[in-house]
């Protein structure tokens, strides 16, 4: 091998290394740049309203008053409703697929559940408008009002479009995320754990409860948080069914608004800088929340890979 060859090879090496390095750093820069871009555009609103932006419930473009509370409220209520429904079901799916189903069945059902995540948001929205909302209005909401009407959550006129519809659509959309990550962390539980539990005479459920779930607990929590992250930022499907009204009402039947939906609806139409700035500030808040949420979620998911967390027997 000649000296010259070695030199060119190492030059090419250097170039490849630098190229990949710059792309990796580029990702970091991209994240910081996006945050900065938004902060920069949101600055007039931040300076004008300060922390009051988060606590004010007035969203009045005519009087130039902007408060994000109704959107934060709508986003949180729909997202937590979605979690309440999707977390147990997603976990159930993961347990069924990982611990019970035969391998061929597992592949098919697993693929189907993942397909839920593949369906575009706008298609869910279309379905929400023409199938889900009318069904809620004529069947579900009157039923809930009749049987659970003493709870403020289920009072009021059934409209179909509202927080209940938003929460249900979101539940469907985040279910695959929760199921997939729960499966992943459960698969990481060493088989020895399971065998040990079975050898002690545990039933299958006891094995799951004692040997699998405690081990995977923090990872599952991480999966649920990632699901929450997806719910918070979901835009189109929610916009199409939530009713788009910036107000804070107790009833789940009531129309509301979410942070992402108000951006989608009003962003291109904000006719003056402060209005635009206020919308971008909502985006910035959303960005901040997803940042923090992802940080903790990844921490939890990663921690499962590191080692067992002993669960107490019984």
């Amino acid at each position: 091998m000649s000296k010259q060859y070695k030199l060119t090879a190492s030059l090419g090496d250097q170039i490849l290394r630098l190229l990949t390095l710059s792309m990796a750093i580029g990702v970091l820069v991209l994240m910081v740049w996006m945050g900065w871009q938004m902060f920069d555009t949101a600055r007039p609103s931040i300076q004008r309203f300060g922390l009051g932006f988060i606590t004010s419930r007035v969203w009045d473009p005519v009087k130039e008053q902007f408060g994000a509370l109704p959107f934060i409220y709508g986003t949180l209520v729909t997202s937590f409703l979605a979690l309440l429904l999707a977390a147990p079901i997603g976990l159930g799916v993961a347990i069924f697929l990982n611990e019970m189903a035969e391998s061929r069945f597992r592949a098919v059902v697993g693929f189907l559940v993942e397909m839920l995540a593949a369906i575009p948001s706008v298609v869910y929205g279309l379905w929400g408008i023409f199938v889900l909302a009318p069904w809620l209005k004529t069947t579900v909401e009157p039923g809930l009002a009749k049987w659970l009407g003493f709870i403020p959550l289920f009072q009021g006129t059934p409209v179909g479009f509202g927080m209940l519809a938003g929460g249900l659509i979101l539940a469907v959309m985040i279910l695959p995320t929760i199921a997939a990550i729960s499966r992943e962390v459960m698969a990481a539980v060493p088989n020895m754990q399971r065998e040990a539990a079975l050898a002690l005479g545990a039933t299958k459920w006891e094995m799951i409860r004692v040997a699998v779930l405690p081990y995977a607990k923090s990872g599952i929590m991480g999966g649920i948080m990632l699901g929450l992250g997806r719910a918070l930022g979901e835009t189109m499907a929610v916009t199409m069914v939530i009713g788009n009204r910036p107000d804070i009402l107790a009833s789940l039947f009531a129309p509301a608004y979410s942070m992402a939906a108000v951006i989608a609806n009003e962003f291109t139409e904000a006719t003056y800088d402060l209005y635009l700035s206020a919308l971008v500030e909502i985006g910035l808040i959303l960005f901040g929340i997803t940042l923090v949420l992802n940080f903790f979620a990844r921490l939890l998911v990663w921690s499962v890979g590191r080692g067992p967390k002993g669960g107490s027997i019984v």
Partner: protein
Amino acid sequence: MNDIFRKYQNWLMLIVFIIATIIALIPLFGVLGYVLKNGLSALNIQFFINLPKAMGLPGGGMANAIVGTLIMVLIASLIGIPIGILAAIYLTEYDRHSWLSTVVRFATDVLTGIPSIIVGIVIYTAVVLKMGNFSALAGGLALAIIMIPLIIRSTEEMLKLVSHSIREAGYALGISKGKTILKIVLPTAAKGIITGAMLAVARVAGETAPLLFTALGNQYWARSLNEPIASLPVQIFQYATSPYKEWHQLAWAGSLVLILMVIILNLVARFAFRSRSI
């Protein structure tokens, strides 16, 4: 007594999990069923070759939206896939455990979790306002930003699966590190990387939110990449929220086409490239 209780409890819980799985699949079949039922009846050859008609008139199609989606996804792929793969190479081949890699990995995860509408905002302020018009390029760029972290994650996973002995064999033969990566490691993981790329493409093909303020929409053909352009998801959104029966029909038909595109990409990615030859 206690044993019987445990047995019943066991059965009960197993049934609960089966029911959970069934509940999870109901919306899938609900959505697919309605899209098929309503979409098929509206789908005809005109749909694929005609431009949209003025509202209320029958016979319009979504040809420009289909092409628009393909063009923007292509732009996104041309930008996003190389960047993603290169960044992933750095993370696995050059610097697997340093603090920089950890931070970049975290940034990647955060980017994956960022709502797509935020990408739309950023591209609007940074590109659309600066260039002075809505365009296919801006739309493609927004989709690329969504693709990059997805590509990095999947490529990184695939590269990690390549065993060290293969790399060491390369070095032992006196092949430089760069060549080893390009000629040995990447080809070994190629199937997996392509699978990841196709899944990322499937994901962004259905994105609506980032296109609202970047590609805008167009009822005609866009003549250059520097013009507003139609896309399937945005068009479906506009049609779905309209009051016209004809447009609802088109929205269902458009959804069917979009879902088929996405599902076919998923199926091909998963089954044609499934055997990870490592």
